[in-house]
C-alpha cells in the first residue's frame, strides 16, 4: 500500500530520475557535467518562462493557445522598433507591453465576453501571428537591425569560474527563467491572488459563490500569461539574434505539455509551478540526451513519446484507483 501510494505521488518524478540515470550511464563523460546542464537550462529557458506563465492560467483550469504567437509578435515588435531606431530598453518595454495587452485581450474574451478559452485563444493565436507577419512583412529581422547589446544578452552570463580549463558561466537566460519561476511561485503559492486562482480551478462555482471576483482574476491571469509569453519571445529573439514571425510557434504545445506533465505529480492533479519545472526538464533532457546519444531524429521522436508515456504511466496506474 505504501509503495503504491509513493508510486502514485512520485511516479513521474521517479520516471524523470530513471531517465537521468540512463543518460548518465550511457554518457558518463558529458551528460552529468556542469557545462551540459548550464547549456540545457539555457536552451530550456524560453520554454520555462512560457510554461510558468501557462501554469498561471491553467491553475484556473483554463489554457492559452496564443502564447507562441504572442512570443513571435513580441520579438517582431521589438525588432521593428530596433529598425525604427528606438533604444533597446524602450523596444523591449514596448514588446512586453504588447504581450501584456495581448494577454489582457484574451482575458477579456474569456472572462468578460465569456468565450471558451480554446476558441478565444485560438482566434488570438491567428490574429497575433497575422500581426507579426504584417509588421515584419513576413521577413526575418536580423543582422545589423538587431542592436549588439540585445543579441549579446543571451550570450552572456554570470562567470562561475573555470572547471577543467573551460570558463563556465550561468547564462543570463537561465537567470531570467529562474527569476520568473520564483516570481510565479510566490504569486501562485504565497499570495491571495494565487490561492484564488486555485479555488477557481478547483471549483469555479464554489469560488464564485464565496465572493471570489472570478472575472477580474481571470483577466489578470491571462494578462500575466501574455506578459510571460512576450518575455519568452524576447529571450528567443535575443538568443537567435533575430526576430521571425513564426519563431515562437513551437512553444505552445510544449508549454502545455510541460504543465500537464507536472500535473501528474500533484496529488489532486492541479498545476504547480515546481512540478511544471520538472515537466520542462523532462522534455528538455530527453532532447539533450537523445541528441548526445546520436539517436536518429525519427527514432528520437518515437522514443520521446514512448518515454513520456512510460514516465507518467507509473503515476497514472497508481492513481487509477477506481475507474
Amino acid at each position, binding site marked *: 500500500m505504501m509503495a503504491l501510494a509513493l508510486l502514485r505521488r512520485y511516479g513521474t518524478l521517479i520516471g524523470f530520475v530513471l531517465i537521468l540515470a540512463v543518460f548518465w550511464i550511457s554518457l558518463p563523460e558529458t551528460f552529468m557535467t556542469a557545462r551540459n546542464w548550464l547549456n540545457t537550462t539555457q536552451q530550456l529557458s524560453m520554454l520555462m518562462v512560457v510554461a510558468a506563465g501557462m501554469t498561471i492560467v491553467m491553475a484556473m483550469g483554463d489554457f492559452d493557445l496564443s502564447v507562441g504567437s504572442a512570443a513571435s509578435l513580441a520579438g517582431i515588435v521589438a525588432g521593428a522598433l530596433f529598425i525604427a531606431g528606438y533604444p533597446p530598453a524602450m523596444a523591449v518595454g514596448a514588446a512586453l507591453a504588447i504581450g501584456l495587452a495581448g494577454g489582457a485581450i484574451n482575458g477579456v474574451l474569456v472572462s468578460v465576453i465569456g468565450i471558451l478559452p480554446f476558441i478565444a485563444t485560438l482566434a488570438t493565436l491567428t490574429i497575433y501571428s497575422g500581426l507579426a507577419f504584417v509588421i515584419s512583412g513576413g521577413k526575418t529581422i*536580423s543582422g545589423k537591425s538587431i542592436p549588439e547589446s540585445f543579441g549579446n544578452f543571451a550570450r552572456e552570463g554570470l562567470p562561475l569560474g573555470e572547471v577543467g580549463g573551460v570558463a563556465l558561466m550561468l547564462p543570463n537566460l537561465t537567470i531570467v527563467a529562474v527569476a520568473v519561476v520564483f516570481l510565479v511561485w510566490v504569486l501562485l503559492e504565497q499570495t491571495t491572488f494565487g490561492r484564488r486562482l486555485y479555488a477557481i480551478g478547483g471549483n469555479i462555482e464554489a469560488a464564485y459563490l464565496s465572493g471570489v471576483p472570478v472575472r477580474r482574476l481571470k483577466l489578470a491571469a491571462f494578462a500575466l500569461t501574455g506578459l510571460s509569453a512576450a518575455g519568452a519571445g524576447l529571450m528567443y529573439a535575443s538568443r537567435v539574434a533575430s526576430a521571425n514571425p513564426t519563431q515562437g510557434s513551437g512553444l505552445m504545445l510544449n508549454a502545455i505539455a510541460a504543465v500537464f506533465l507536472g500535473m501528474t505529480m500533484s496529488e489532486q492533479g492541479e498545476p504547480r509551478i515546481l512540478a511544471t519545472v520538472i515537466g520542462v526538464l523532462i522534455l528538455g533532457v530527453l532532447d539533450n540526451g537523445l541528441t548526445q546519444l546520436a539517436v536518429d531524429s525519427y527514432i528520437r521522436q518515437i522514443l520521446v513519446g514512448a518515454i513520456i508515456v512510460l514516465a507518467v504511466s507509473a503515476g497514472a496506474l497508481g492513481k487509477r484507483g477506481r475507474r
Partner: protein
Amino acid sequence: QSKVAVITPYLAQPGTQFYVEAFQAVAKEKGWDVNVIDTSGDVAAVISRIEDVVNQGVDAIVINVDPAQVTAGLQSAKNANIPVVGMDAGSDPLLATNVTSDGVAMAETTATYVVDRIGAKGNVVMFVFDAFPPVQIRGAKADEIFAANADIKVLDRITPDVSDGGIADSRAKMEAVLAANPASGSISAVWAAWDQPALGALQAIEAAGRQGEGIVITGIDANPQAREEVAKGGNLEATVAQDFTGIGTAAAEAVAKLLAGETIADPVIFVPTKLVTKENAAN
C-alpha cells in the same frame, strides 16, 4: 573516426533529404560517424543542438538553416574550434563556407520563363514564403521581374500554410482564386517559389477543368512529383533542378577539407542549377 553532426530544422522537406543522403554517401566512404538531427522547424533548437554536439565534441558540424539566426550556436562551435559548414544555409563569417544553389538565379530563371511564355502580359498568381530566407529571396527576385513588366499584374501573392507539406493548402487557395476569376484567360500564369504550391495549383486547375486555358505554372526544386508533371506536358511547364545531390556532395567535400586541416577561401560555393522542361524532364 571523425564525428560529424548535420543539423536542420527542415529534414521533412524533400530537397533537404536529397542533400543529406548525398552527404551521408560521401561520409560512408570516408568512414565518418554522422549524426543527423532534425528540430522540426524550431530554429532556436538548432542552437541548442549545436551546443549539445559541441559539448559532445564532434569534429565538424553541417547546418541547414539561416546562420544569422543561430549565431549563438556558431559562436560556441567557434570557441571550441569546431568548423561549421553551411549546406544551403546562407553566408556568414562564422561559417567556413556555405554550399548552395543560387536562389536568386533560380527565381530569375523561372520568372523570366513565365514572362516569356505569356508574352509579358497578363495576370500572375504568386506563391511565396517569406519567413524562410532562401525562399524569400526567390520571391523578392520574382517580384522585381514582374514589376518590371508593366502589363503583368500580380493577382495575388499567397503564402500557403506549409505545415501539411504545402500541396493541399495551396490547392485550396488556388481553387478560391480560380473561383474568383472564372473567365477563361483571366489567369495567365502561376509562379511558385518552390514545387509544392505549383503542384497544388496544378491540381486545382485540373480539378476545375481549366487546364485548356494555357495557364503556365512554374516551380522550383524539380522534386520527383513535379518532374513527372512537367514530363506529362501539362500546365506545370517548368521547374528548376537544384542539384541537391551535388550540394550534399560538395558540402561533404568541404567538410573533408576542413577535417584535413585545410581552409576554404570561398564564403559561398554555388552548385549549378538547371531549368527542367518537358524536353529534359525524363532524365
